[in-house]
């Protein structure tokens, strides 16, 4: 009798105790028990165990439970202490040196003089100190206008050379052709023992949805192109883990165009939240949410620290459940090919000595889909050496990684020659005309281990932040690449990113660090979720949501704080996708 056979009978023995056996199984088990003393012993032990368990003393609830429940219902608060009641490493000890920021709902915060004067290669400075954005609170601004194709928006790249004159238009002359403000943003507010996570309407600040029992502050968010869903990632305190969630915030609106597909319906009601999984925190490669352009799919990556494996998952709003799509242990979500109908196509990457990317098809009508598999099996296209291609919204460009990767603990990182590249992305899924994103860095064997990257809706502007550089800094007396700075560039700028493309140091409050960056559809504004230091362990985490208008040369960036400056965690924001006509 092998151990394996005993194992299969153990399951029958266990099920027999609760009457969960079919007649055939019962007969099979009885015959086996007649001849196997080991399994008879197991049956006796399991039966004893069940008796012991059933005999456990019943402990009644506290007498005031009913009053506590009633009180909780009336006050709208839960009893469990949130995780931030406990000391947290990054929040504790950072000190309370935060510069006081006015508590107005919306306020102009900074209009800093540039500490450095004109930067090499910058556009001609315009009149110093000109404020482009009105100091009026955004809520009272005229309704956002997103007229014109995104490409018509002025490209106000820092470091744009004299040859690229269209991008040099003086900030004072540049009309804002799209609204810089987000469609929605997340807010974690309230006293530290009763924080509420809400999704708010960007222009008005009104609450759209309230999320029960937040696990921690939000660090990433993406709105589905149809505006029905907000997917987001929250930290689980200092656990080293994240949680991926999605909240349905609106009904789909059928289009007037009969040729367009009806909006994706879902068994999940508006206002409900679904937890899509938990994952190792701290890697930009993992903290990436990718909606397909038809809103049929959300692609994301979950890394299981206990199993040391990383795989791609998708959430289909139409099905209402997440499902694992790879099982190779080193797979990462990339991007969906925009505009595909009937079949959605998704770039999935595998980490390794030589990373790979595979384009996989997903049939939109397929309900639950098949089980997880190997992305390398029968892909539509394969891209050797390319990791996590991030396509621009219209799919014509890509930013991706190349280099040698290694697994370090529970994360895959680049260890040699790792850096992001910018390329064209053709209709037959080829990556062509690639060039390093950072043009003034000598990479050699040094590498970026990771960095976070985001495209703007115009398909030209992009931002890079959380850069982790393994080599010697190359910025002379300035740290470069600097993990605390945001690098803001434009694909049409032939020089890519340079040290001069870092946003002003003074854009962030003292001691703050960047959690998330979104490029607004204007192509010249960034929305930065900036983690702010707090004074003690009993304080709730705080983050400012800053709207930065990038200026060049001697003109300092302008910064507007969205949301109440002192009272909570605001951000990340999210934008609805622009349609071909440039309207959301």
């Amino acid at each position, binding site marked *: 009798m092998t151990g394996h056979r005993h194992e299969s009978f153990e399951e029958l023995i266990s099920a027999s105790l609760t009457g969960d056996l079919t007649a055939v199984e019962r007969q099979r088990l009885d015959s086996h028990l007649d001849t196997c003393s080991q399994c008879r012993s197991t049956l006796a032990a399991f039966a004893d165990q069940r008796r012991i368990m059933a005999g456990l003393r019943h402990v009644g*609830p506290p007498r005031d*439970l009913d009053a506590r429940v009633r009180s*909780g219902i009336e006050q709208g608060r839960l009893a469990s202490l949130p995780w931030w009641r406990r000391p947290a490493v990054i929040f504790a000890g950072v000190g309370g040196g935060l510069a006081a920021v006015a508590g107005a709902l919306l306020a102009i915060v900074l209009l800093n003089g540039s500490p450095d004067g004109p930067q090499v290669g910058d556009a001609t400075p315009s009149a110093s100190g000109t404020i482009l954005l009105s100091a009026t609170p955004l809520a009272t601004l005229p309704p956002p206008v997103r007229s014109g194709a995104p490409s018509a928006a002025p490209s106000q790249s820092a470091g744009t050379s004299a040859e690229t004159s269209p991008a040099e238009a003086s900030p004072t002359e540049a009309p804002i052709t799209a609204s810089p403000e987000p469609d929605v943003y997340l807010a974690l507010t309230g006293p530290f023992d009763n924080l509420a996570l809400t999704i708010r309407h960007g222009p008005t600040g009104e609450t759209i949805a309230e999320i029960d029992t937040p696990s921690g502050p939000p660090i990433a968010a993406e709105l589905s192109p149809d505006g029905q869903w907000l997917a987001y990632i929250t930290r689980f305190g200092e656990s080293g883990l994240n949680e991926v969630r999605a909240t349905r915030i609106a009904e789909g609106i059928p289009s007037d165009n009969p040729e367009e597909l009806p909006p994706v319906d879902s068994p999940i009601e508006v206002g409900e939240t679904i937890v899509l999984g938990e994952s190792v925190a701290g890697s930009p490669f993992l903290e990436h949410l990718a909606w397909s352009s038809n809103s049929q799919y959300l692609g994301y990556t979950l890394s299981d620290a206990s199993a040391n494996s990383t795989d791609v998952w998708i959430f289909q709003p139409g099905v209402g459940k997440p499902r694992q799509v790879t099982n190779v242990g080193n797979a990462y979500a990339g991007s969906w090919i925009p505009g595909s109908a009937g079949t959605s196509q998704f770039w999935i990457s595998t980490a390794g000595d030589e990373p790979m990317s595979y384009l996989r098809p997903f049939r939109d009508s397929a309900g639950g889909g098949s089980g997880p598999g190997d992305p390398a099996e029968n892909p539509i296209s394969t891209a050797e050496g390319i990791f996590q291609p991030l396509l621009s919204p219209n799919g014509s460009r890509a930013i991706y990684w190349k280099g040698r990767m290694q697994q370090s603990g529970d994360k895959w990182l680049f260890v040699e020659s790792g850096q992001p590249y910018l390329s064209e992305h053709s209709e037959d899924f080829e990556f062509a005309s690639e060039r390093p994103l950072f043009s003034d860095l000598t990479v050699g064997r040094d590498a970026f281990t990771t960095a976070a990257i985001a495209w703007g809706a115009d398909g030209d502007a992009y931002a890079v932040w959380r850069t982790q550089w393994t080599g010697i800094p190359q910025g002379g007396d300035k740290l470069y690449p600097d993990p605390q700075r945001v690098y803001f560039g434009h694909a049409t700028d032939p020089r890519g990113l340079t040290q001069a493309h870092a946003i002003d140091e003074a854009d962030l409050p003292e001691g703050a660090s960047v959690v998330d960056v979104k490029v607004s559809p204007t192509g010249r504004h960034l929305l930065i979720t900036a983690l702010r230091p707090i004074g003690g362990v009993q304080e709730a985490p705080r983050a400012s949501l800053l709207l930065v208008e990038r200026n060049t040369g001697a003109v300092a960036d302008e910064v507007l704080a969205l949301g109440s400056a002192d009272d909570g965690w605001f951000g990340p924001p999210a934008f609805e996708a622009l349609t071909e006509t440039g309207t959301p």
Partner: protein
Amino acid sequence: MQSVAVPGPIPWDAPAVTRRAADSREIEFAQLFEEYSAPIHNYVLRMVGDPDRAADITQDTFIKAYRKLDTVTEATSTRSWLYRIATNTAIDDMRRRRMVTPMGNDAPAFANRPDQSPGPEAQVMASTLDERVHRALMQLRPNHRQCLLLSDLDDMSAQQIGDVMGLSYPAVRTLLCRARGEMRRALSAEGFAR
């Protein structure tokens, strides 16, 4: 851990509540609370092993249940639904605790006391049967503990356990078998004969 400050007992039959009791929702909830508060509390207590936390989790379970009462349909098993809320709330609580550094004023009160406990053998002899079984239970993985409690303490079938834990029938059978195996070893370590 402390629970939220409560201004004072608010009995169910207080005037304001009585007025609202006319509302069928209130009546339905009051019945739900009366029927399930004790077993849910007992289940949660065995899950988390700490009376204060169990009280908080039970409290939160019923607050959430009240908020979601409208979602219960005739086709829904109220019992499974309520146990599912309790299970998820307990898991959330355990996750939070697993995931934070056990330091500061919220750490268990006994954490800083010198270890004056007797050795393992004396401990086994001195403990009541209930304490020994409870200790064994707390050695189990949370999902094993959950399904064993639902099966043997709350007498649920594999199908009902599946409803609570969001698992298929075969998955519950497999999980329950593994849990029994693990519990057998844990009980053995507590001095139970088999």
